[in-house]
């Protein structure tokens, strides 16, 4: 039965990884502006000549 303990530790650490990723993205400001990225991705990448 002790395998369940190992499985649980694994699952919690995976979840913890996601939690960390979420907190990181919040700290990075990804949730501050939920509108511009949606537009930004549609722009052509073509660099504009100066």
């Amino acid at each position, binding site marked *: *039965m002790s395998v369940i*303990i190992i499985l649980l530790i694994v699952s919690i650490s995976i979840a913890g990884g996601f939690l960390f990723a979420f907190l990181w993205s919040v700290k990075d400001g990804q949730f501050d*502006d939920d509108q511009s990225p949606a537009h930004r991705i549609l722009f052509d990448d073509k660099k*504009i000549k100066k």
Partner: protein
Amino acid sequence: MITNKSTSDRITSCFHCGGDCPSQNISLGDKYFCCNGCKSVYEILNENDLCTYYNLNKNPGVDQKREIRKDKFQFLDNEDIKKKLIQFTNGKQTQLTFYLPQIHCSSCLWLLENLHVLDAGVITARVNFPNKELFISYEEEKTTLRNIVETLTRIGYEPHLSLQEISSKELHKTDRTRWYKIGVAGFCFGNIMLMSFADYLAFNNQVDLKIKLFFNAGSILLSLPILFYCATEFFVSAWHGIKNKFLNIDFPVALALLITFIRSLYEIFSGIGNGYLDSMGGIVFFMLIGRWLQSRTYQTLSFDRDYKSFFPIALNVIKDGCITPIEISKIRQNDLIQIHSNEIIPVDTMLSKGHAKIDYSFVSGESLAVEIKIGDMIYAGGKQLDGLLELIVLKEVSQSYLTNLWNNPVFNKNEYRKENVYDIIGKYFTYVVLLIGIGAGMYWKIQGQNTLMWNAITTVLIVACPCALLLSQNYTNGNIIRIFSRNKFYLRSPDIIEKLTKINHIVLDKTGTLTQSNTSNLRYAGKVFDVSLKTAIASLVKQSSHPISQLIFEYLNCPDVDDVVHYKEIEGLGIEGWVNEHHIKIGSIAYVGGEFVAEKSGSKSVLMIDGEVYGDFMVSNKYRFGVTKLLASLKKKYTLSLLSGDNDAEIQNIQELMGKDSEIYFNHSPQQKLDYIKRLQHEHNLNVMMVGDGLNDAGALKQSDVGIAVADTRNNFTPSSDGIIDGAKLPVLDQFILFAIAGKKIILLTFAVSVTYNIIGLYYAVQGTLSPVIAAILMPCSSISIISLTYGLSAWVSNFYNMDQKN
């Protein structure tokens, strides 16, 4: 590609901003523009290969009819002022954030983020769309702050630079704690659930002791961050309430959380069971989401503007023949200042040079511009309409007539959230639950079963937690705020919804609220005149810069004018002159003379041609579309009054609109408006809603229970208020109020549903037999069903109040 099909249209629309072109004179190739401003923006973008701007959206620009003078941003060269605007600099690189109210579409985003094409010194430019902010970092060697601002202005995005944003740099901070809390609560709740599940599904407690120990330890560990981090706001709020001597809705919630935690610890350590830690986590998680939904108020709108955000940062001061920009707070008495067209005068001054025509509509509510003679006083807040002025400063900014209003204690009062209806329900709910708990406990005590007594008391408190009330309140209000904002009615906070339902008196402002600001209707009544006479009248009125003359000129709509001889203008009375052998005289009855019976005094000008009275021109305000209907509907439910800073020319119209029972006051100063609201509240015990638009309403808006500001365009600046409504949506204000009342009913209904859940739970609880399994199933089920019920109901009900569901 969007092609320009406008040539086939009857009215050509501007390629840049989409506005109507008065003529087809301004064009470039096959593209037409409404004004030279729009054309020059197009030229700049075209030269720099930035025309993708026009491909992303049709007519993305903002109209450029207002010309901006060249040295407007000279003050940005001043190091002191610059220092206050920037966020960071190391001498080489500088960073700052601009507020650009014009940002509205993806074209804006694209163009602004390609700013480096227009100004090589810009390193990065990044738009924050919901906040309408542009973050810029630039190299000091290659460009200057003034250059960047001028470039932005040239392409139609003039940054809003104001004192208020300078004095509070907090504008750029966003609160992310709620996100962290939701993330942590979700993680902990999910994993506690995972571990509790094994226990629920095991029959006859067959779980291995070692595993059980591990699960319990894990649950406790994971519940700690929930209680000590995620749920802190409930404890803090409850404590604040107790300190202010009232029990708010957070109190029973905090109590239930605490008891759940202690009881669970007791159960786990004494080996009786597994406790209710999973339910506790779930409740906190759902409540945090509810709070987040509810607090998603709109950051783009600032509800706390005072006079500072309307005033410029610096003024041009003339000293020893030199013009230097000086920061507004450093302007002293007797300084000589310069004001250009369309600029706001931020201090009380005396006119020393120039032709002053001041628009006071924003500060006093007067609908017509005022002409001022040299040596007369100009009050702070007036806007010069046309031409350059030199003014002598009489009082510093902080002491001027207008800013005095903000010294009123109303503006310094830091309002603590008052007890609302849900707090009261929560309070009684707590009493009842405590009573049931103690009753059940007493029963078991008498029966001599001490353990069951404690079981009963604690489970009752855990099960009957009014979380459902808090949930339904948060989710319903969150949804109502969202539906309101889709309909262009933006509230400062969800508490306002509840306040809206309690209103019983409505006070309205006239200029800019009931009427459209800056537009007046002119009516002519009298004999018809032919084209040559019409041209003659137009030629005469063109000579005068009096606002009424200009209205008449616009009304006549004559392209050509003739010469006027012996032109004479008598200030405040009228004008006369000879055009094409006709003697024309326009002015007040006293001035023109002749037998003409006046129906009512006010803004009326009599027209006399060659000694014969032809008729009269009457200026009346243009009321907003739908105002009649709105007032008729409001009249039925509420008592109304009108406060205006304007003269009483419109009294008959207003009386008709508002009905006989309404109180109507004209010539009210901002202070008088504030006092009037105070009187209504204290002497008549009324809950007052104030609807206004200008700075002159600022005091009244603040004093009233609900202050609603009316804004006409997206970029309009409104004074501090509880809510902002789009001018076009004002006619359905009554629907908004009715919807808010319906929202309150929804909350109470869903609460009743949750009480049913509670009774089922209590049935087991008082017997002391509620197993964690039932609690674990009952609690999330009730939460989720409450959430979907309140969300669905509020969306469905909104249909009955003609609310738009889409953006």
